[in-house]
């Protein structure tokens, strides 16, 4: 090998080595640059995340509906355990099993024996779970229980078991128990285990409530000890904002208790009651049954998490009638004194007979009496006067088939059929609230237009959002005008007659005496559509109304699902409606008229 060949060979070797170095550098710098940088940073710095405090949810008077409280994460350092794992599991389950709630179906009769049996099985189940965790292979640290209350922590600490320790963690506190459960929603964990709000206000305002966690980066030496004069980077945490709601604690309490009494008295499967200011759209109370306990949400069926007042759709029945009546009045097709000359008996429409609910007929009844008697034949007469195109256009204008704009998740809107898909009979039954699916809050929003002089209010729950340094007042725009002020006033007067004179409505022995007050109202009893036909048994019983009629301030809506004792809205939802009205009168000190 001569000198030139040797030199060339050397060049080639150097070239290969150089290329190898370059490619390795390329790999380090470009391909795995990010992970290497992260690794380097991990070697040089401690990075600590400082969790932000979740914002509170307050009633309108700033008293907490949802707050935070200190709890503890119980964990174990497995290498330090000295007792047997089964001993530890037994001791811990003996303290922690009391945290597992006893969940029973609403109204269920449970004996003490059954309760004891449940507690015993809960303890055994928990003991097995804890023992399994303590026996995890290749694990050094294991989490044993989240959100351990202070009292349980003290009891566990007093056992002086080696290898167990606690770290503080915040949890949600519900001072009023499960009050307004479906409005608040709850806080669970997201995919990586960070807290996240689900459903209701917790879900809808999760970003505002969560805030932003802080980060502290401290330089450390080769042994992992922090360097006192080393560099330190600090990003302060931003605590979550506080929501100030429109809910009134007292009104929410008596609305819930009146609804619970109604559901229990009439053996209903559930119900909804709403109290709203029809002018501003501020929701003062929103009660639902059955409900769940937010603090123990995993133990309840997930179908209870959604707010049925916005997520469940139903046919409204007769409470729809004042809306159709207002449309015909607004179009000047009728007046309250217009008489129905086709209401002497059942009406034959599109191959079907339309009857009244009690098979009693009133020849030449006025439009006011049509509402007072809740007369279906009278309503088909109104529908004919109004015309179907007008009718469907008003139904849309009243907000059906669209979202109410409420600041909660999970709203179902109920699509309206296309005009061409309505048969003659459907056009007739729509006038008395059949063949249209609505949610409870859509009904409340539609009636706000009759109560406030003609425009749709935007229902809402949050009035303002409070951060550390400012209070942001939310603006809830006034909706579009649907009917004129005069029409709204006229229908309101007609509904006063319904409240006062209705022969079948509101059994006097079961409702409080409120004769001195002018209240506009209407009840409804609707069959329940199920798999393409109506259920043979079971109704949706409801009442909607507002008062004082001359200057309405409170719009109240009550719906009972499938009351077993009696099917009628006036008989069942009626007493609940008037009990809420009575309590509102008392609470706000409203004088008669």
């Amino acid at each position: 090998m001569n000198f030139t060949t040797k030199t060339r060979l050397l060049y080639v070797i150097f070239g290969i080595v150089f290329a190898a170095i370059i490619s390795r550098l390329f790999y380090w710098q470009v391909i795995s640059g990010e992970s290497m940088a992260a690794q380097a940073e991990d070697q040089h710095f401690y990075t600590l995340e400082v969790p932000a405090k979740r914002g509170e949810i307050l009633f309108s008077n700033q008293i907490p509906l949802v707050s935070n409280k200190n709890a503890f994460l119980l964990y174990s350092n497995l290498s330090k355990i000295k007792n047997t794992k089964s001993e530890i599991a037994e001791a811990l389950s003996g303290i922690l099993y009391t945290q597992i709630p006893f969940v029973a179906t609403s109204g269920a009769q449970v004996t003490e024996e059954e309760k004891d049996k449940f507690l015993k099985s809960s303890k055994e189940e928990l003991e097995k779970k804890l023992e399994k965790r303590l026996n995890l292979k290749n694990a050094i640290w294991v989490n044993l229980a989240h959100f351990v209350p202070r009292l349980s922590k003290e009891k566990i600490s007093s056992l002086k078991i080696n290898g167990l320790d606690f770290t503080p963690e915040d949890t949600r506190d519900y001072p009023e128990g499960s009050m307004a459960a479906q409005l608040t929603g709850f806080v669970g964990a997201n995919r990586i285990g960070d807290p996240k709000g689900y459903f209701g206000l917790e879900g809808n305002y999760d970003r505002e409530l969560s805030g932003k966690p802080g980060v502290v980066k401290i330089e450390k030496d080769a042994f992992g000890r922090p360097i006192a004069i080393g560099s330190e980077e600090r990003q302060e945490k931003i605590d979550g904002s506080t929501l100030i709601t429109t809910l009134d604690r007292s009104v929410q309490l008596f609305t819930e208790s009146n609804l619970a009494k109604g559901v229990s008295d009439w053996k209903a499967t559930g119900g909804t009651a709403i109290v709203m200011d029809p002018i501003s759209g501020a929701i003062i109370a929103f009660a639902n049954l059955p409900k769940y306990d937010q603090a123990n949400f995993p133990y309840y069926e997930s179908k209870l998490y959604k707010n049925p007042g916005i997520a469940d759709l139903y046919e409204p029945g007769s409470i729809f009638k004042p809306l159709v009546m207002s449309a015909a009045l607004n179009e000047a097709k009728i007046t309250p004194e217009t008489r129905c000359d086709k209401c002497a008996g059942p009406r034959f429409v599109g191959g079907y007979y339309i009857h009244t609910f009690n098979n009693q007929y009133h020849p030449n009844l006025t439009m006011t009496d049509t509402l007072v008697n809740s007369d279906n034949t009278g309503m088909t007469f109104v529908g004919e006067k109004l015309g179907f195109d007008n009718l469907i256009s008003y139904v849309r204008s009243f907000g059906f088939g669209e979202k109410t704009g409420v600041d909660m998740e999970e709203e179902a809107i109920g699509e309206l059929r296309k005009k061409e898909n309505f048969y003659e009979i459907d056009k007739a039954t729509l006038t008395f609230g059949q063949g249209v699916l609505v949610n409870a809050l859509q009904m409340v929003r539609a009636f706000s237009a009759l109560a406030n002089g003609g425009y749709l209010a935007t229902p809402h729950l949050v009035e303002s959002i409070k951060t550390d340094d400012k209070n942001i007042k939310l603006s809830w725009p006034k909706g579009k005008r649907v009917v004129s002020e005069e029409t709204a006033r006229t229908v309101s007067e007609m509904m006063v007659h319904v409240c006062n004179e209705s022969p079948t409505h509101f059994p006097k022995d079961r409702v409080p005496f409120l004769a001195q007050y002018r209240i506009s109202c209407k009840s409804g009893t609707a069959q329940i559509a199920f798999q393409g036909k109506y259920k043979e048994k079971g109704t949706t019983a409801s009442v909607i109304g507002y008062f004082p009629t001359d200057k309405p301030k409170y719009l109240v809506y009550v719906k009972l699902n499938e009351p077993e004792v009696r099917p009628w809205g006036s008989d069942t939802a009626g007493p609940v409606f008037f009990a809420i009205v009575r309590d509102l009168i008392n609470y706000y000190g409203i004088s008669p008229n």
Partner: protein
Amino acid sequence: MIISGVVILVMFLSVVRVIIANASVEASEKLKVLDKKINALAAENELRAEKLRVKESLSALSLKAEKSGFFKVGNYVIAEPKGPVAAVIK
């Protein structure tokens, strides 16, 4: 000359650093004690707020009232004024 000046300056600065570090260690000890006190007070404050929330709970108060025998009246009596409650005597 310059070298000895630099050496003296370095020594002087080292002494200053030790003095400052010493002083700040003392201050940080005080800060640590204060910090502990603040944390303890904050924890106590939180605990008291928690207890207060439980005592203030309207649902709990209403249950307590019910157990104590209070009940809600179904109908209210509304007094209608028949004449002036007080009149000016001339």
